[in-house]
């Protein structure tokens, strides 16, 4: 074995070590949710000062007790239903508003559309933590406090700017030829928009739907501000707030809830990550 081979092997070893280290850091809390979900209480609640009891593995056989508790005796399924209701309505609003706006900015408004698009995107940077106080007043005035209606009203303020930008960026990468040809063939602008464009935008709309779904699943600040009744909470609010009764943490069920909510999101992120990224990099990266 010569020096070159040795260096190559060392480099591969370094690569795998770095990959492993990053995976452990990124995945550890997820592993911890997984193992906590299925551990028996007597295996779970052993003080960490007892070094003879290894917390990383199952010392007793796994159990479904916490999962049963979560689905049978808590409002978890109710929260899932609430979340899905908000998801569906917010998706409808977002698609109806952001898709035409994105098309308009990409195809119809020319130079000032680009500036306006940038302006709309910047509103995405205004965080919920700056707006939740005035919104609590708006929501009270509209009589929406403690209702899912408040979330349905407010979530589009996050999804519309981002999705308008996404659709605009997406259309810029779709050649103008097909629409142009349709106009040469005698379609009016309006006819192009109604009959030709929808087919072209469809993949973009899918991204909008997915982004909106993940956002509603993850949002916490507005839900915390507006919703106080346990039976009206969404998953991301109910689990950390209402599953903790007083000072009693049912860690098994808590981690089960976190696990089951995270799995679908993790799968979606793996499928759609590249499309989200196009929205964030704002042309600083050309794909």
């Amino acid at each position: 074995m010569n020096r070159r081979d040795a260096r190559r092997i060392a480099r591969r070893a370094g690569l795998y070590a770095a990959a492993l280290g990053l995976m452990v850091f990124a995945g550890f809390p997820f592993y911890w949710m997984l193992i906590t979900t299925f551990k028996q209480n007597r295996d779970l609640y052993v003080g960490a000062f007892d070094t003879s009891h290894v917390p990383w593995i199952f010392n007793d056989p796994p159990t479904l007790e916490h999962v049963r508790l979560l689905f049978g005796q808590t409002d978890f399924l109710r929260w899932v239903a609430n979340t899905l209701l908000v998801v569906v309505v917010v998706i409808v609003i977002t698609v109806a508003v952001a898709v035409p706006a994105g098309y308009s900015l990409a195809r119809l408004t020319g130079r000032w559309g680009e500036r306006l698009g940038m302006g709309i995107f910047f509103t995405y940077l205004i965080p919920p933590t700056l707006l939740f106080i005035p919104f609590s007043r708006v929501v009270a005035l509209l009589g929406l406090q403690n209702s899912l209606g408040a979330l349905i009203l407010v979530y589009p303020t996050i999804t519309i700017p981002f999705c308008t930008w996404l659709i605009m960026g997406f259309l810029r990468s779709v050649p103008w030829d097909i629409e142009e040809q349709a106009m040469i063939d005698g379609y009016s602008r309006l006819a192009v928009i109604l009959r030709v464009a929808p087919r072209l935008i469809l993949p973009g709309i899918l991204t909008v739907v997915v982004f909106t779904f993940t956002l509603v699943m993850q949002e916490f600040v507005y839900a915390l501000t507006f919703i106080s009744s346990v039976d009206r909470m969404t998953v991301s609010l109910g689990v950390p707030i209402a599953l903790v009764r007083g000072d009693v943490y049912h860690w098994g069920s808590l981690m089960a809830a976190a696990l089951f909510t995270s799995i679908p999101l993790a799968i979606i992120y793996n499928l759609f990550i590249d499309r989200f990224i196009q929205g964030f990099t704002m042309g600083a990266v050309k794909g």
Partner: protein
Amino acid sequence: MTQRPRLADRADLLGGMMLAPALVYVIVLVGGPFVVAIILSFSTATAGSLSFEWAGLRNYRAILADPIFLRALRNTVIVTVGSQLLVVALATAAAQVFRATFRGKPLARFVLLLPWAVPVSLAAIAWTWIFDSTFSVLNWTLKVAGLLHGWLYWLGDPALALSAIIIVQAWRIFPFATVIVLAGLSSIPSEILEAAIADGAGFWRRLFRIELPLLTPVLAVAILFGVVYTATDLGVVYILTGGGPANTTHVLPTLAFQRGVLGADLGQGAAIAVFLLPFLILVAIAMLRLARRTEIGGGGRDEPT
């Protein structure tokens, strides 16, 4: 011969009509509340009544004399800067790893994206369990490894709690930064790197002399979003420490929530939240400059791939 275009062919008119709902939504429900937030910060408004009285700078004077607020402001800066430094280091390393091909890469990618996919509040509750004062697996592991002789009360000690917050913020943001840096790396023309290799430039030299300088705009985008996500985040601190012990780990969003929503003092809550604005304005300016630079730098954008 020119013909007056029919209504169905007026691009500007159709464009305006299609854009209007989005503009109205954004102006009424983002612009409006934004202005209200600033007005509220100069008022004595409370959550219980709808009365509204001008208070001038009273809220600002009150919070600027409040050690808890000053501490929260300092914590926000420390957490934001600390976590973003970690994020840059982790994301640069992770991007180098993921650029290479290795066995198990799809699985590794899945795991890498987990922190980003998990809702903040659920991740924070998982970390709360990891940092538990009695059952912390970290303490167990450190003890077994012989690195810890006493005991770490992760969320019970102000300095440790702040470090815990920084770790969690870096954990949840570095996958996002990694993916952005990877996208940037793939846009560096391969000829440049090949030329560097031909000239005998080693890994570190290529990284620091060629890749990182070329990646600056992309890294900047990642950091800017990271700053916004960290500085304005409420969930991590709210769930992990609730601002405790004894109000030592508050950041601006949690303190604004405590005073404005739980304490019903909308005026003071709004004034605290307004201190987030400098972070956001800096980020917005940086982004605009960046966008302008890439616009000038790269003509012919978005050719179909």
